[in-house]
């Protein structure tokens, strides 16, 4: 399956025929109407901004501060104080809070020229030539990353993962993503061309995930299953979250169902920020219907009439693909009021991020969805109890929800049978450019990593050999080549200090310097820390300084720092960043230079 190149993208312009604001005029969550009717807060002391926003109800507006600031950047190249004042007025956020938002997201802080070039510094792009393309681009354009030319014509910025990891290194010129051989030269000569799309395939004859959504699972559920039966089926299927944490989706649904609240929401985490991952990207672009069907099923199961997809801004095509799929679904009656005459109604809204990795954490995602700084909140309360507008909310990853249609149609037993003796269901993995045959592949849980890397992906190209793999994203441990027989599953990878995570597999070949890899990873970790909890805010920065300094790294001090991050961090970012560093200490101590 392949999409014709850039049919719905015009560099720097709007999509022809699309109407991104259409949903604003459609049915809105009741909570909004109720909230907007409340009017101004009258001297009420708010416990936090979310509650303030909830009570104040955004002053009758329907746009978040973040959406308005992003629009200012897209249309006028930057955010001014006037933009901030208007955003505050319309969104209901205080001006100071809007200022805080405008300093948080990469998209809002990087200066933009009339031509804005971004270079991917994700791990898959790094693995090709260890950021040589960054230096060449800076030299060729005469700008450093984060700079804009004096005449305002050109700007250059860093972006972490454009999701073209099958064809690295990748670049974005306006909204055109170019990647792979020759891309750097085309960017330098101003002739960027859309990059080739990845291959996606399944080892199954009847794939669960690598298929177009046809709403048959939703049809069956609405006709034959009660909401309770559907919840029970998903619980029995033991559908574990595919975003990284692996929490059972059925339990989340049950918590949200049981939580008190006169309105509930489904929020899809489409902020696939893991460098080296392009699984959710392909699902959103090639099977958006499967996701919408999964969302509607979740909505039916928990009693939600509205769902949001939060898509990262690094994936401009994903947002458009989803918006088109939503429009088609309203036309065909697969979304909207009284779906298939069942009495169940479900509406979907698409929102865009603005450049932040930690926003992939569910509480940060909800903050961002409400237009605020994408910082993490301590749990409890969990989103299932108090989420969007402080109402019960299910936050599920894209791929997680794409499993729901199969379960609704075939049941938990058939789902478990897909991966005999292992975690039920299947998993999408994606392989980076270093492999002979990169792409997205649907595999059974329990498949040995060697089979994935050698049989399915054909080993590495250019006669190179695998030195190590990073599996599951930047918070995943590093598996050395001598442990390739480890099965791809939750417990087996955990035993090696690794994880299934979100399923990205980045191979590092025999040229890779592990000290430089540690620098690369901690640069990402420190840059993306949301800044809320102290260990992560300061500790990742100190860790980066330790591995960037000349000479040996004090092993005891580094391990003390990693333990502090693991135990004391508020979320999985600070808590998980030590995992790959621990792997490097364990497997490559000499190269890392620990003493």
């Amino acid at each position, binding site marked *: 399956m392949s999409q014709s190149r850039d049919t719905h993208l015009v560099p720097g312009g709007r999509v022809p025929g699309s109407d991104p604001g259409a949903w604003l005029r459609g049915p809105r969550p009741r909570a909004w109407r109720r909230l907007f009717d409340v009017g101004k807060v009258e001297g009420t002391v708010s*416990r936090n901004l979310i509650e303030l926003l909830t009570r104040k109800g955004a002053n009758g507006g329907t746009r978040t501060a973040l959406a308005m600031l992003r629009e200012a950047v897209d249309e006028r190249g930057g955010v001014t104080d006037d933009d901030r004042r208007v955003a505050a007025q319309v969104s209901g956020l205080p*001006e*100071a809070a809007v200022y805080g938002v405008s300093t948080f997201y990469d998209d809002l802080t990087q200066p933009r020229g009339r031509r804005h070039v971004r270079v991917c510094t994700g791990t898959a792009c790094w693995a090709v030539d260890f950021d040589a393309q960054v230096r060449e681009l800076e030299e060729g354009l005469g700008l450093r990353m984060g700079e804009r030319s004096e005449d305002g014509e050109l700007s250059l910025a860093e972006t972490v993962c454009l999701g073209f990891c099958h064809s690295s290194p990748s670049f974005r010129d306006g909204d055109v993503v170019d990647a792979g051989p020759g891309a750097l030269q085309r960017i330098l000569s101003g002739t960027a061309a859309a990059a080739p799309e990845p291959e996606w395939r399944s080892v199954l004859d009847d794939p669960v995930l690598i298929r177009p959504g046809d709403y048959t699972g939703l049809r069956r559920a609405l006709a034959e299953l009660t909401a309770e039966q559907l919840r029970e089926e998903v619980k029995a299927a033991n559908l574990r979250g595919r975003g990284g944490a692996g929490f059972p989706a059925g339990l989340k649904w049950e918590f949200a169902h049981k939580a008190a609240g006169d309105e509930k929401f489904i929020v899809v985490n489409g902020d696939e920020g893991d460098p080296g991952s392009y699984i959710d990207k392909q699902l959103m672009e090639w099977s958006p219907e499967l996701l919408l069907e999964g969302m509607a099923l979740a909505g039916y199961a928990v009693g939600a009439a509205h769902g949001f997809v939060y898509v990262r801004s690094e994936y401009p095509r994903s947002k458009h693909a989803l918006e088109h799929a939503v429009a088609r679904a309203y036309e065909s009656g697969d979304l909207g009021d009284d779906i298939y005459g069942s009495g169940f109604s479900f509406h979907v809204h698409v929102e865009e991020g603005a450049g932040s990795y930690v926003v992939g954490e569910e509480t940060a995602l909800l903050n961002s969805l409400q237009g605020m700084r994408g910082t993490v909140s*301590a749990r409890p309360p969990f989103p299932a109890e108090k989420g969007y507008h402080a109402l019960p909310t299910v936050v599920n990853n894209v791929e997680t929800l794409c499993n729901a249609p199969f379960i609704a149609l075939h049941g938990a037993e058939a789902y478990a049978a897909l991966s005999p003796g292992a975690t039920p269901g299947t998993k999408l993995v994606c392989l980076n450019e270093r492999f002979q045959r990169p792409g997205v592949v649907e595999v059974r849980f329990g498949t040995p990593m060697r089979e994935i890397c050698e049989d399915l992906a054909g080993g590495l190209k250019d006669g190179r050999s695998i030195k190590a793999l990073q599996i599951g994203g930047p918070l995943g441990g590093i598996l050395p080549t001598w442990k390739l027989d480890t099965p791809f599953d939750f417990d087996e990878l955990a035993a090696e200090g690794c994880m299934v995570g979100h399923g990205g597999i980045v191979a590092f070949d025999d040229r890779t310097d592990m000290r430089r890899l540690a620098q690369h990873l901690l640069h990402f970790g420190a840059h993306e820390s949301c800044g*809320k*909890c102290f260990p992560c*805010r300061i500790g990742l*920065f100190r860790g980066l300084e330790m591995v960037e300094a000349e000479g040996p790294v004090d092993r005891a001090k580094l391990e003390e720092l990693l333990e*502090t991050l693991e135990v*004391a961090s508020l979320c999985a970012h600070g808590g998980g960043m030590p995992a790959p560093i621990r792997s490097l200490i364990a497997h490559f101590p000499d190269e890392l230079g620990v003493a």
Partner: protein
Amino acid sequence: MEVFVDGVRVEVEPGATALEAARLAGKWVPTLCFDDRMAPFGACRVCLVAIEGAAAPVASCTTICQEGMQIETTDERAQRIARNVAELVLSELPEPPAGHTELAEVVERLGVGEPRWHGTVHEAKHDARHPYLVFQHELCISCGRCVRACDEIQGAFALTATGRGFHSNVTAGLDSGFQESTCVSCGACADTCPTDAITERFLFELAEQGSE
């Protein structure tokens, strides 16, 4: 419900936190982002305690008590990691905290020595445009107490966190100083600040004179 703090039985209301229980039991637990006039925030991570059955120490300010919970405030690992976090905080400041600040007290009671990390520190940046209140941005440890005091106690919403990661800080209005913001000069921010990052102008000038 009843819980036990270092073996001492304490009666707490449902929904109480482990920190509240510890304080009821008369135990000292270090805190930097906590102020009992505001909702727990869970940012500083120095209020670590051990909970029986938990794999690792937890932040007591955001841990809800369960019936019969055993809370250990003197756990060796919890204290060592809290000390490491406080040490990291010292490492981001260009100078040791002034003796009268809450940070100085926490650091002293935890027994934090000279920080082992000698890296980048926050750059000095002062804003003394307001008649009563002064920002010393380099002393900000992003605990969020001023922002929350402004929101939750005063309801003026004049302050915000800024930036991200190590470069996080705090500012008023559109980074335009207190006088151009919705600040009502109540001083709640300076009152709660654990480091003098926001302080009263009078004290700031006294300190300036003292250092000359």
